[in-house]
């Protein structure tokens, strides 16, 4: 019965997804379907809060699945983020899909299925299970990217993503096969024991296999030089999907990457340090270069999400060098990045729901005059992404850079700070556009609706997460978020 409770969040979502799929052809309005989808997610979220912090290291239905699914706080926190991310995507974009003809009922089912896939990914304790989770999530996202069937850019983006994504999926399978060949099992537990009992010189086959898996991870997080899809796919996808991908799906990849890197390959993770450092440098510089040159805000955010992957890679290579701060730093940064990107894409898609054109930098001219409160919140998100102090983004960068310094990677820390400086340019450019130009249009009233209220809440959390202390109980401030990150990491070991 306890087992049943632990598996309930996932089951609620998958059953809900099937129900929604069946309902999608009925005559229900999109609005009502949206409410149902959010209700399902909320139900799952409530159960997750009950489970969180409850048990350590339980295998779900061990008699049936063996050790395929694990339940720990690490997975629970990721689950919470996925669910919240999906809920925010659905709620904030309420306006957006009402204004677009091409949205139909299955949109909600696809989102729910992909959340299910991500949850499988974060709970996976076995390579094939992880692959299945990854593919469930990816396949749904492929479909979502190409949702606007008549738009060429959208279709191109989908094809690009499907082809490249499937190819890197093949890399993952190859890696799994090699690891199975070496360790004789795909279960994380068995692999970890095998890695521990062998000298690094006898592990070449496993290392090659693990490197192949790493390539898949690099591809999915958009590390340079495997980034070529990012801009086009983020650009081609409808705003809600871009928001979902950038904030939620990206984090899901880190769930499995961290579990592999921190637990399974812990004894040998120093092996990849140089490789990671090279990827980090390329990602930071390449991403910054791309971001500087964009004219569309959406593409700029896409490119900057590559840079954020670069920061995370700094911390991951610090893990390999034995830094204690690095692993919580990654978790904290993921939370910070999640909040900031949900917020910024949320505002973008909120604006886009009224406008039918692609949003350029120039379109933001006079935005502060038209919508002063929205502009303030957009500024907060930009500042947080740029790592400006007094926002949660600053603390995220703070932990990452101190971790890099702790592990002796001064150059990477310096480079990270340099790219943070470059990022000031492209984020402040948007602030400049919003504030520096007058607008002839009259000032609009602040539309109080579910989307805008949520955006306000996110922006408050970002500020509070940057400066907040533990003065107010139950609302995690800067310390609270780090506590969460620490708890997640500690539950792994």
């Amino acid at each position, binding site marked *: 019965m306890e087992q049943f409770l632990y598996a309930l969040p996932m089951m609620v979502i998958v059953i809900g997804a099937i129900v929604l799929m069946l309902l999608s052809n009925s005559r229900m309005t999109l609005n009502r379907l949206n409410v149902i989808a959010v209700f399902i997610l909320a139900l799952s979220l409530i159960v997750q809060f009950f489970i969180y912090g409850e048990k350590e290291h339980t295998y779900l239905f061990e008699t049936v699945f063996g050790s395929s699914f694990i339940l720990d706080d690490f997975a629970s926190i990721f689950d919470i983020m996925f669910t919240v991310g999906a809920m925010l995507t659905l709620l904030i974009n309420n306006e957006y899909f009402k204004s677009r003809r091409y949205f139909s009922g299955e949109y909600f089912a696809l989102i729910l299925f992909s959340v299910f896939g991500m949850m499988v990914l974060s709970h996976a304790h076995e390579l094939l299970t992880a692959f299945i989770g990854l593919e469930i999530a990816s396949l749904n996202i492929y479909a979502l990217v190409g949702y606007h069937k008549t738009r060429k850019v959208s279709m191109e983006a989908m094809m690009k993503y499907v082809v490249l994504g499937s190819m890197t999926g093949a890399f993952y399978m190859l890696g799994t096969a090699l690891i199975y060949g070496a360790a004789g099992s795909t279960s994380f537990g068995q692999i970890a024991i095998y890695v521990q009992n062998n000298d690094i010189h006898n592990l070449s086959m496993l290392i090659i296999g693990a490197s192949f898996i790493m390539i898949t991870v690099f591809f999915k997080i958009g590390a340079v030089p495997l980034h070529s899809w990012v801009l086009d796919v983020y650009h081609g996808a409808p705003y809600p999907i871009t928001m979902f991908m950038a904030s939620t799906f990206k984090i899901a990849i880190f769930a499995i990457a961290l579990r592999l890197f921190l637990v399974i390959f812990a004894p040998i993770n120093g092996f990849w340090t140089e490789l990671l450092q090279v990827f980090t440098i390329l990602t930071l510089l390449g991403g910054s270069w791309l971001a500087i040159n964009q004219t569309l805000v959406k593409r700029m955010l896409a490119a900057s999400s590559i840079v954020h992957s670069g920061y995370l890679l700094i911390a991951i290579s610090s893990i390999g060098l034995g830094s204690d701060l690095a692993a919580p730093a990654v978790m904290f940064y993921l939370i910070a990045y999640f909040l900031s990107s949900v917020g910024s894409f949320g505002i973008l898609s909120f604006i886009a729901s009224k406008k039918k054109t692609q949003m350029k930098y120039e379109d933001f001219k006079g935005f502060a005059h038209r919508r002063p409160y929205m502009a303030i919140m957009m500024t907060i998100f930009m500042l947080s992404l740029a790592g*400006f102090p007094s926002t949660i983004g600053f603390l995220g960068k703070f932990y990452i850079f101190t971790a890099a310094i702790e592990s002796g990677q001064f150059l990477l820390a310096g480079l990270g700070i340099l790219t943070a400086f470059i990022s000031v340019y492209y984020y402040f450019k948007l602030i400049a556009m919003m504030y*520096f130009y007058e607008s002839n249009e009259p000032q609009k009233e602040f539309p109080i609706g579910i989307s805008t209220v949520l955006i306000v809440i996110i922006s408050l959390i970002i500020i509070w997460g940057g400066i907040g202390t533990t003065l107010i109980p139950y609302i995690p401030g800067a310390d609270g978020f780090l506590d969460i990150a620490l708890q997640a990491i500690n539950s792994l070991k």
Partner: protein
Amino acid sequence: MQEHILTVIIFLPLFTAVILGVFRASTRALKVGAFLTSVVTLWLVLWLTYNFDPQGKMQFVEHAQWIKHSGMSYYLGVDFLSLTVLLLITLIMPPLYLYMKHEERKGYWYNMMLLQTGVTGAVLSLDLILFYMFWETMLLPIFIMIGKYGNGMHQYNAMKIVLITILGSMSMLFSILYLGYMHYETTGLWSFSLQDLTNIVLNAKTSVILAAGFLLAFVIKIPLVGFHTWMAPAYGSAPTPAVVIMSSIMAKLGIYGIWRFGFGLFENTLIFYAPIIIVLALIGLIYYAIRAITEDNLRRMFAYSSGSHLSLIALGLFLTNIYAWSGSLYLIGTHALASAGIFIMIGLVYKRFKTVRISELGGIASKAPKFTFFFAFFALSIAGLPGTGGFVAELLIIIGAFETSFWIGLFTAITMLSAMVYIFWMLQRTLFGEQNNSTEFTDLNLREMIMLFPLVVLLLLTGLVPSLFTPMFEPQLSVFLQNALYAIGGLK
């Protein structure tokens, strides 16, 4: 209240701004609110000054945990150095608000209040991360004020000042993080409070690199020659209140930073940079003076003049003797008052003539005697006219320079005279002669006189009765200096 007076002083403007913003206050309410806030903070700071013990070190200290995992603390305190700058900030704010009386754009007022919180916080924080937070935050209102309400190529110049300044702060951030990590490595605890970090023993090489990180941030803010490319464009296109704050307060914060964090953390390393800074400052004295002579735009001219005086302050700071240090501290105060005055006057010229080009002005003296008096007074006190505070300060620095080396002293003394050249020539062309402009020039009204009056009084007081002010800072300044000299001697 008494224990938290510093917190109140810092956050009162921000708090007022937030309250007014949330309730969507009318412009009139906003004006009244901002002005009242500035008066209340002034009153609080005067109370603070009255209760300040010149013999004591850090006073009114507030120390609380802020973010415990990373050892950041909410650590505030005031000593003679911060009190000087704090007094200046709060003294300059009410006249500025009076100057802005007819300003109807709401964003202006909000930004000024944010700015006050930013600069005050930076002056009072003794925790490096807290300092960094305020240091960055004060840039945001300046960015928006230049970009939104400026003139000329203001959008471009706003971006320029932000990028160059943030480049400096980022290098400082690296040094801060490294220092924090060093503390963690030696004691096992994270801490960024100045007090804890001074105890860290650094080897010479790291110390030199880390000091460079801090110095870059401060030197850009001052700016010394070579780091000054943002200055003239930013001053030229910023609206008057922003210029006043930049020249009177923010530039001084660069000096304050070197004093507090440079000499606080790296006493014995700074000697390594002293020759470089002294040479840069000397070059700056001449270079800025020449640029000021050839400049036709009044704002840009006084930007260069301000750069020249800040070079002088930096010079005095790195001469490390008691005359030069007292002179530097004194000049921080008097130059802030005088440049606030002169930039407000230029703002008034702009309001009347819609131009600040010297070649388009002239003949003001015959029409507006009161205006002429104030304008000439502030300009001359910038040049260091005997009887104004600037004279005392410059004299002290020159004595200090002679004490260090005859040639530096001679050089400084001669270049200081060049200030007379451009000031007198400028006065001649703007105030006297033929009017090159058909617009009617109205004299100062009562409000404008009231806002300028305190600045005049203070400048005269600092010039005529320096003994009123020296007891406030002298005892601790000499202690501070002895510590620095001791550390330098330890290196030799």
